[in-house]
Each structure stands twice: as C-alpha cells, then as structure tokens.
C-alpha cells in the first residue's frame, strides 16, 4: 500500500516529530520563563482544585519541554507522542468546557467578548489538528532497542 509506506517513511515521521515537538518546545518555553503568569491562567480556568494549581504550573511546562525535545531528537518517539497527545486531549477538554461556560481565561470572569471566544476556538482547532502528527507517530514510529535486534513487528513479518 503506497500511502502506508509513505506514512511509515522516515521523512514523513521526521516532519511530524518536528512539527509536534517543535510547537510544544516553543509553547513550553514561555511557561517555564513565566511560571507565575501560567499559574494565574490555570487559576483563571477555574478547573483545577486550588491546592494543585501551582504544582501543575511548575510541572506541566517541563513535561511539555522534555517530551517535545525527545520527540525532536527521535528518542522514545512513541511514548513522547503519546504523552503530548494526552496533554492535547486535556487542553481541548479544558478549552471546550470553558467555551461552554462562557469563561474568559485572561480575566477568569464570565465575559461575552467575541474576541476571546474566537481566540479560544482557534486554540482548540490548533490542538485538535496537532493530534494528527501525534497519532501518526504513535502508529508508525518504531522504537528500536538496537539496530541488530528486530522489533516485534519485524519478527512477525
């Protein structure tokens, strides 16, 4: 099957890894440099129990950064992609819930502003689209132990 071969090819996987990993490294950087601002946003989402807010703000950006870097480097690609896919699902859910509530994230208040709404829809769309390279990597990437050791897929062939 030509499409399957194309998807499984190294260049295709490289593109997915660079897009997904690169975007997450970029997004994580700002949160790492300004954890107080990120904590404020987590607070404004009104979804996290109070006592967990700062722990999340401290830990999450580094999870994004580590998984993103590993993905770019091609280390543990399936697992890194799976972690980032999990995070994307959480973000999509969080944005969706707050769009339904009419909550404005910058102010943590209920606002009817259309600006904020369309920005949120765009964010959600971006996160949904990013699931594509994630799933691509999870399905087609091969975690090799050593060049000479066949992977489980290869042994079955």
């Amino acid at each position, binding site marked *: 099957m030509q499409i399957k071969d194309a998807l499984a090819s190294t260049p295709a996987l490289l593109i997915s890894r660079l897009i997904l990993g690169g975007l997450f490294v970029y997004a994580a950087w700002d949160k790492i440099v300004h954890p107080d601002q990120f904590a404020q946003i987590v607070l404004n989402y009104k979804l996290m129990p109070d006592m967990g807010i700062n*722990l999340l703000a401290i830990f999450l950006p580094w999870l994004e950064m580590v998984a993103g870097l590993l993905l770019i480097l091609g280390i543990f690609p399936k697992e890194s992609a799976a972690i980032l896919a999990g995070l994307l699902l959480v973000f999509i859910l969080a944005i969706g819930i707050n769009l339904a509530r009419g909550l404005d994230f910058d102010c943590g*208040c209920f606002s009817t502003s259309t600006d904020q709404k369309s920005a949120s829809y765009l964010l959600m769309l971006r996160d949904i689209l990013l699931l594509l390279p994630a799933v691509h990597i999870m399905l087609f990437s091969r975690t090799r132990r050593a060049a000479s050791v066949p992977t489980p897929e290869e042994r079955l062939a």
Partner: protein
Amino acid sequence: MMYIRNTAVIVLTAVIISTLYNTFSGRGIPWFPQKVEVKGAGGIARPQLIVTAAPMKYIEVAEARAKYERGIAFIDSREDHEYEAGHIRGARHIAAAHSPEDIRKSLGAIPKDQEIVIYCDGEECGASTTLATKLQSLGFTNVQIFFGGWTEWKKAGLPTSRGSKPVSS
C-alpha cells in the same frame, strides 16, 4: 512493558527538572497558593488565591480614592469596549491579555518603582491580577490592585470618563 517504563522515565525526568528549576532558578513560584483575605464591598473579607511569589497588594475603594486624589497612575485592565464605555477618569488602558512587550511599550517611561493601581470590573474579575502579575514580571515593584474595581468606583460616585482616551476632552 517497555512503553510503560519509557513513559515513566520521561515523566520522572520532567518531575526532577521542574523541582530543581523551581527551587534554584530564581523564577520559582510557591509550591502551593496562599489564601489571603481581602476586603471588598462593604468591608466584607473575601478569600483571594495568590499564586505568585511576590506579594500582591490589594486596596479597597477608600484607599483607591486617596491615591487617585494624589495623582497616582491608574490602569484599566478590561477589554477595549468596556474601557470606552466608561472608566476611572484619567486611567490608562492596558488590557490584561496584552503581551509583556506590548505592555512595556504602553507604559513607556514610567519608573519601575512607581506606584501603579490596577483595576478591572470588580471582585469576580481576575484581569487586574493577571495584568499585575505581568507587570511584576517586567520588574515593576509597586503594583497594587484596587479590588472593588469599576463597580465600587461607580457606586461611590467617583470621577469617571468615557471614550478611548484617559480623559475625554
């Protein structure tokens, strides 16, 4: 099984790095937010959650009025249309959503230790805290939040203005 182990390695690495970074980088935040009692409308104390390392100073309407009369700079952190519909007379507008670079440009030559009062709609609104956090990140050390905000100011019948400039001509 390998997948589980590898995933655990990634998560553990992130836990270790984030712990070290928060402790030693100088940009850390408290591990847990603090609950602080702030006096809002009618002197009723409301709990406010503080997530940042630097203490946030909250003031109520009487103190806000005193500062206004002394000519202290006020900043409205709400959105454009809210500011234009009515704001504290003389207050500048910087929406909480703006990036730190845009904020620094809007503030121009204000010295970093100058007293600044930020407000938004009122007690339910986090925009003032969001903007205050960004100002603190930029190095402003004397940022205060007028907790009662626009709601309390109007209720007290204090000077207001309309339009896109601090004071309408």
